[in-house]
């Protein structure tokens, strides 16, 4: 039943006698004006040389705090309040600042989460790698430079020598992550802490980078402490698993065992909600309706039922027809010269009323540009887009406003798309005000109705975005989009920034609303697992073109194009079958 990608299993024998890292009853607290708030509460774990251990949990579970406590990188007022962190028998919590400086980099490497913000924008790449090597070795001059190039080449930057003088903003996210991995491993540390090293990257890039990291750490015999929210990834890349929830370890042991047979209710919920796993189960359910083997999957059952109803309801004829659409951007390169970038190249597809269509692709594939073209936020270079029988390209003034009322967007970042100075009620009522709909009293009533539809209490209307969680904010963004009673929602990576459990809730809400309000959805996402959960039809985009378009089942069960197969293969944990 359980199959593991063989290449990621470290083969170095485990020396049971002396653990490399042993954390005992670790407690970390953050001092606030109301006293010390505990973030990590009595965590103990053991990591042997050559082993890979993953800490899994949602945001706020204390997983990153635990990792940062090891090399004393706790943010702000964070402090280890109790417990020991033994590294090769030495208690790291008792070290002075100078002693800790000797451990960081040379003994314990660190690969941070977000490649965009973890390289200093004002120094070139060569400088930032060089200073790491310089701090932990006696290499200087030419030898230092040679080693810098070597480190970057090992990390997978083949043209490192030519790119040393370039700056972080000239590198893609994947490239930057390679640089950070290079820095983390530059001094051949015994332990590497990798804090969500690929969560900001596309699946295919993620796979390449994790494969590479796996090879390097195996070659050097480096132990790896993985921090991740992605169960599939943890199962695929680590042999030991620690599940954290609210600062405590709720379950630990060999990863396949835990994921195949989760004991703790939280782990069970996590396994059930992980979309890469759950999506398989929807399919199983669809193919074999009689066998009710997943009694606990409330979310999934609901989703399946609604999917069935939706299919019955779907009438013929397209609500949106995209015909031969292209979008060209002019980019200034040097001086007055321009190059032309064809972001969207001759794309055609149709969306039926009441269905969910998804456009899938990596960053740079042009999927978001298609969304902007449909929303009339960008102008077409060629082709046509028809909505409900009328060409939307030439819409102006009142006609355009009318179109905007019927097609509403929901964006990715629930932190950036809500005005922090506006309370929730005003935020939701704003579209009504902008389109001059209803009296004050009517708008107020509509806000309450919408809050109810997205399952938030009425009192939420007086609160501000900063007081709400990511999931609550995304509910509000959806409520705002629904305020004008649109026919179509364009959801641009609308659930990508959310934890798996919250993601599941929002997807559930969206399918509920779809049947209730007869909505048509266009999902723009890089996450195939999400697509499988909610979409009826899929368009796979690569470099501006649609390479494959078919029903969701066809794309997943019988992918025709090599690129689609590659995308599917790159889903972490895709090779796993899990029990409950």
């Amino acid at each position, binding site marked *: 039943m359980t199959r593991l990608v063989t290449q990621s299993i470290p083969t170095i024998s485990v020396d049971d006698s002396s653990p490399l890292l042993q954390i005992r009853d670790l407690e970390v607290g953050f001092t606030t004006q109301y006293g010390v708030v505990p973030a990590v509460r009595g965590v103990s774990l053991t990591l042997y040389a050559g082993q890979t251990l993953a800490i899994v949990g949602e945001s706020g579970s204390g997983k990153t705090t635990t990792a940062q406590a090891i090399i004393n990188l706790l943010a702000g007022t964070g402090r280890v309040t109790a417990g020991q962190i033994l590294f090769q028998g030495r208690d790291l919590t008792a070290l002075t600042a100078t002693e800790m400086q000797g451990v960081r*980099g040379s003994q314990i490497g660190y690969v941070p989460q977000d490649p965009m913000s*973890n390289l200093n924008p004002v120094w070139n790449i060569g400088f930032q790698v060089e200073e790491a090597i310089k701090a932990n070795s006696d290499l200087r001059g030419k030898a230092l430079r040679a080693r810098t190039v070597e480190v970057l080449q090992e990390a997978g930057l083949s043209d490192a020598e030519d790119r040393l003088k370039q700056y972080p903003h000239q590198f893609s996210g994947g490239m930057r992550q390679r640089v950070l991995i290079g820095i983390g491993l530059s001094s051949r540390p015994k332990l590497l802490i990798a804090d969500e090293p690929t969560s900001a990257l596309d699946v295919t890039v993620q796979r390449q980078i994790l494969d590479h990291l796996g090879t390097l750490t195996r070659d050097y015999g480096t132990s790896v402490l993985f921090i991740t929210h992605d169960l599939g990834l943890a199962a695929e890349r680590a042999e030991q698993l620690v599940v954290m929830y609210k600062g405590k370890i709720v379950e630990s042991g060999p990863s396949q065992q835990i994921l195949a047979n989760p004991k703790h209710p939280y782990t069970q919920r996590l396994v059930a909600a992980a979309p890469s796993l759950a999506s398989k189960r929807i399919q199983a359910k669809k193919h074999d309706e009689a066998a009710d083997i997943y009694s606990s999957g409330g979310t999934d059952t609901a989703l399946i039922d609604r999917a069935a109803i939706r299919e019955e309801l779907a009438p013929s004829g397209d609500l949106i027809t995209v015909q031969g659409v292209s979008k060209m951007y002019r980019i200034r390169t040097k001086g007055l010269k321009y190059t032309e970038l064809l972001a969207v190249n001759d794309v055609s597809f149709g969306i039926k009323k009441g269905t969910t269509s998804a456009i899938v692709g990596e960053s740079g594939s042009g999927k978001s540009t298609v969304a902007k073209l449909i929303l009339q936020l960008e102008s077409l270079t060629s082709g046509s887009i028809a909505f409900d029988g009328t060409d939307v390209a030439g819409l102006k003034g009142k006609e355009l406003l009318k179109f905007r009322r019927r097609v509403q967007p929901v964006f990715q970042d629930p932190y950036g798309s809500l005005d922090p100075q506006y309370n929730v009620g005003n935020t939701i009522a704003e579209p009504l005000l902008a389109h001059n709909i209803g009296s004050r009293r009517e708008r107020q009533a509509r806000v309450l109705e919408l809050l109810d539809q997205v399952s938030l209490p009425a009192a939420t209307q007086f609160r501000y975005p900063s007081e709400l969680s990511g999931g609550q904010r995304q509910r509000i963004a959806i409520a705002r989009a629904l305020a004008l009673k649109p026919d179509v929602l364009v959801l641009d990576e609308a659930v990508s920034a959310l934890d798996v459990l919250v993601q599941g809730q929002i997807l559930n809400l969206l399918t509920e609303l779809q049947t209730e309000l007869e909505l048509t959805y266009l999902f723009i996402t890089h996450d195939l697992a999400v697509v499988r959960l909610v979409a009826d039809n899929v368009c796979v985009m690569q470099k501006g073109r649609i390479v494959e378009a078919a029903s969701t089942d066809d794309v997943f069960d019988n992918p025709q194009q090599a690129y689609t197969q590659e995308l599917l293969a790159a889903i972490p944990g895709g090779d796993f079958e899990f029990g409950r």
Partner: protein
Amino acid sequence: MLWYTGKRLLQMIPVFFGATFLIYFMVFSLPGDPIAALYGDRPVSPGVIAQIRAEYNLDKPLIQQYLLYIGGFFQGDLGTTFSGRPVSEVMASAFPITARLAMLALFFEASAGILVGLVAGLRKGKLFDASALVVSLLLISVPTFVIGFVLQFVFGVQLGIFRTTVSGAAPLDELILPALVLASVSFAYIVRLTRASVSDNLGADFVRTATAKGLSRPRVVTVHVLRNSLVPVVTFLGVDIGSLMVGAIVTEGIFNINGVGGTVYDAIQLGEGPTVVSFIAVMVVIFVVANLFVDLLYAALDPRIRYAK
């Protein structure tokens, strides 16, 4: 980078002509007849007035006056004051004094401001930080002339360390006290700006990563925090060079310095068009050049601007 500099230099041209024309226009639409004012209550024959008007080109239409003036400006002829002294000579005596004072003030505010701001930012919430904030608030809220008189009294009169007034040649050592007074408000702003910027950058992800590399604290602070924090400070300093160079009427008044501020003030009072416009034309050039300098420095500090498309 060359393209960037060239573009900025081209942008200076319309700014220069626009600003000088506006000033020219404003000075000549000031109420009162400067020629009549020269003679006060004494009777004067219309012929003499017409002659003087012709001499100063005051009888021609505004746009022609302006073009004549600008033509002369580029040939090095800035006109003469009503007392017959060439404007260029007045400038040659006033600008070096103001420039010395401004550079000294700039040196004080930049070095002390960045240092105090850095330490305050690193020790946010501690005693040093709190005192720095209180002192800077005090310097911002108390008017310059009060600070000037107090320092003049304490250091000049009571302690006798500095001369209370500056002599005609205005040597550097006599300008120390006035420069401190002139620098005080900007110093306070720089402290606050640097402090906020440093404390922001301390929390940046790349600073944590730099620490994780095994770098020492001083290196992390100087290499990864300070350089990034200087970008907004440099912008402020650039604008400040401009305002320091155009003179400080109050400070110059307290310490009896014959700099730009006082000269322009007097010229405006007399309605001396050529003097005012010439001084201001030079100030505009200084402002624009200072801004160009800041933009280049900005680009040097932040490669993202250098390579911006």
